[in-house]
């Protein structure tokens, strides 16, 4: 990922300046969603095992 400009100066730079502007937004949005999805799925699984363990007495 890089700066969206290559002027070696901030003089005259306006507008969006974030890394990857205009090239990789969709990638990062998708990765963000994926992180949350994976975290929630793993969290659901952990919770399920925890509650099942109470039924079998293993807690």
């Amino acid at each position, binding site marked *: *990922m890089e*700066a969206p400009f290559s002027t070696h*100066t*901030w003089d005259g730079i306006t507008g969006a300046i*974030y890394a990857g502007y205009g090239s990789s937004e969709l990638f*990062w949005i998708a990765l963000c969603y994926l*992180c*949350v999805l994976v975290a929630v799925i793993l*969290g659901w699984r952990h919770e399920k095992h925890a509650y099942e363990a109470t039924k079998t007495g293993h807690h």
Partner: protein
Amino acid sequence: MEQDLATLAATVAELKAKAAATGTTFSETFYFLTIPLMVLIHVGFLAYEMGASRSKNALASGIKNILAFAMIVPFFYFVGWWIYWAFPTGVDLSAGPAGISGLDYANSVAAPWSEFMGPNLDDRSNGVFWGAFVMFAATTASILSGALIERIRLTGFVVLATVLGGFIWILAAAWGWHADGWLVTKFGYHDFGAAGVVHLIAGAFTLGVVINLGPRIGKFNPDGSANAIPGHSMPMTLVGLMLIIAGFWGFLMGCVIVPGETWSWSTSSFNTIYGTPMTLSGMTFNTLMGMAGGIIGAWMITRDPFWMMSGALGGIISCAAGLDLWYPPMAFVIGFAGAATMPFVSSFVERLKIDDAVGAVAVHMYLGFWGVIVVGIAAQGYPALAGESTIDTSFLGQLVGALVMIALGFIPGYGLSFFLKAIGQLRVPAEAEILGLDKTKVPASAYPEALHPTVTPAE
């Protein structure tokens, strides 16, 4: 006609004077407000460390924390502020290209006898800017504080914290958090939110100290396995961590140069400490996203409330160096990745038989390193300074900066603690550690009605 022109000129002059006054009072107020917010960080550290200690050591941990803060203030007044302005170019006290560094400049603005180092009606900024930096210094020392709980001697700790907060971190800041800093001018080092100059250096210093300090009695068994030593109040620790997050916003405010002063980089917009443009708006996007990513990443891996809340801080530290530059979902992923890997680093440190009581090395050294390096991976090619044709940010620049921070932190931390250990001033006697530091040293009891007896195997 002439009378009209004269009136007009007088009106314009009056308006300019009012605008200038508004500008200086705004900036003076802005930096002033960073200070109570940053004091919240210390409220947080106080709660966090007391909660992470066993009840027999709670007050000793609290006193240690408050005293470090107090000791750093005068030393930063006497020496620390001067170091920041004197040493940006290296060690030869020369002036840098921006003309705001070197021996003469430091003597004029920061020598303790300078006319600007006290109430001065013509100077509305030195004290509040100094105050913000004092709080940075105290925050740096607090990072050291947590790892050493329950067995460090108070006076030995005060020496270590004062050296770290009053001398070491501020030298790192002169080198890497100053427009004349040699890491910036020669390598394009970029560290907007002090991931390197505060977190990495404090974590490295801490590592040097805990190696010499040794583990708490009962932490490790003869076969090398480790025992958990739970603190007496996880709720207090969690609230403390959240207060640190709240106060961190003041820290980030202090990383910004606002318009209004004669020394401000711009007359109309915010800038980083390096003079490069930024917005509070962009910083806010990235701080919240990084924090959220950190909490979720840490929760996903550990399920532990302590590590989850540490992930909030860890997420911000991971993003800190580039908070002015990230695309917000990128900040989320950077915080997520950092915080998700942080617990493994903590386990690794423990396998090395190092007892870092609160994970300071994992949170601050590891994530400080990650935070510095990731700018070189994902935010290359940005001009590192204001002006025409400047050096750009790069992976090499960030790597050099990170290695300098590690060395500048670890070597003094290890060396000074080695010396303190050699003269018997680093660690409390075993008898005191077993009985409890509150009873033996403070002396006072946090819970005189014995509501929180500790029953860990370490007892």
